[in-house]
């Protein structure tokens, strides 16, 4: 999950922070998610990291078609165009309820994003 602060990064290719989490069978987060910092924003480097880490699912904001296709071809499920904070997105993704283009709002509404 490429991040920009507490939010899912609006752009896959511009993200320098990536959250990596592991899910359990019931949909819960296994252990503490970790954040990896990239030396520079690069969609190719991010794809390489995803493959290297053996990631099975990517949740991101806007992603270019070629990177989306590449990850899909590598059998990685990509849920893109997701807007919102990463925690509820992660929960929904692990529960299998997150849809592409889904907009998740802060709780309570109107807080800083």
């Amino acid at each position, binding site marked *: 999950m490429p991040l920009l602060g507490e939010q899912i990064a609006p752009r896959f290719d511009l993200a320098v922070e990536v959250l990596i989490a592991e899910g359990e069978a019931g949909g819960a987060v296994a252990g503490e998610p970790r954040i990896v910092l990239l030396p520079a924003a690069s969609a190719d480097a991010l794809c390489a990291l995803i493959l290297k880490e053996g990631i099975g699912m990517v949740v991101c904001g806007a992603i*270019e078609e070629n990177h989306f296709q590449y990850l899909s071809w590598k059998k990685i499920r990509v849920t893109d*165009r997701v807007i919102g904070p990463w925690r509820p997105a992660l929960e929904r993704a692990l529960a299998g309820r997150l849809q592409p283009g889904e907009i998740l709002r802060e709780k309570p509404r109107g807080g800083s*994003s």
Partner: protein
Amino acid sequence: MKQSGWRLPDILAILNGVPHGVALLDRDARLLGMNHALEALTGYPAAQVEGLAADAVLCSHLSHKNPLYRQAMEGGGPVAAEGDLIGASRKKIPVRLTVSALGNGAAADGGLVMVVEDLSLFRALEKERSGGLEAKGIIGHSPQLRKVLDFVPVLAHTDATVLITGETGTGKDLLAEAIHHASGRAAYPFVKVNCGALPENLLESELFGHARGAFTGAHADKPGMFRLAQGGTLFLTEIGDLPLPLQVKLLTVLDDRAFYPLGSSKRVQVDVRVVTGTHRNLKELVAQGRFRQDLYFRLNVLTVHLPPLREREGDAAFLADHFLQQFASGLRKTITGFSAKAMARLAAYAYPGNVRELRNIVEYAVSVCRGSEITPENLPEYVAKAPPASRPAAGQPPAAPVPAAGVEPSMEGPAGEANWQGAEKRLIMETLLRCKGNRGEAARALGWGRSTLWRKMKQHGIG
């Protein structure tokens, strides 16, 4: 917005008629609403993204890295920048973002309005216009040419002076233009000055301009090519022919980036990249005392040599086919190609006039060809009858073409253009004689329109 009495839905209804994406943002750059065009660009329905940070919805390179909103908020005036966003179709769309503050004061108290212009069409047109090197007319697959073309991006990404050397007709002008269009100066003018075409005084005025009254006939100020090329590239072709006094002035301009126009005491500062070209050996000119050594060193920062056509393996045939398509389509003829014999003749010819000469030869051949294939008979006599031995070895200067029997020497000069002009004139006259002066019949025989024949007759001073 409230002060003016307008309600947000009314404003959005108006904005829906705007062909660009428009969004209204609050003071924290959160979306209050956006029009249909922006919905289409981002792929998010306006109702769902209301209250969200514009950055998150826009997925733009600009809003991500450039704090445009803050700049507009603090500065009050509109702030614009070009970048890209990734749309609903996962395509990168080039956009121009303009953010303006709403409100009366310097600081925006009424929020922001953001206009997102889709520049895809402009970019496509620009690409088409500027094109690649092939669109610029630099065509060829030979390793000798590819080596030069591979160097173009390097030449384009520096502001250093470039010296392009090569025989006449090798494409020095095209290469200079290609370097300009590939450089950061592409949006500014590309100005070409032939240093060998004008006498010294006129050339100085042409290059550096003059003040009113500087000399007899100087009725008004003239900016000069250096100033006209401001921000862009000045291509000084035939730099080897630049008179010595002007060489000093050019050297000063290259060093100081400033000069005094003729008859003016006002110093003019310029930001111009200079690219030079010559078919002469500048080193030899320096040895002969005809070219200043210091200017030679100044110009010789980046040198690129365009190989003559006879040294470009396989390019003559490739270019001949290219020009054949071009002229056949222009003259609406269905010529499929060259016969094996005609191609062998073309391949054996030395091309002292290089690509320019080849182009003229093919134009001639296409003009006179009445069949579906160019045969040796359709080629100008000096090509058709040139012995293969006339082709010099690589690196050797070409010998002047041997005049063919029965051809007037005045029509057969060493330069390709002179050959072509003479040959064309002769062709027209012979056809007119054959057709007993009937221009309509002659035009038909030549495969030209009557107006083309008339224009060419006028050009050659016939009739």
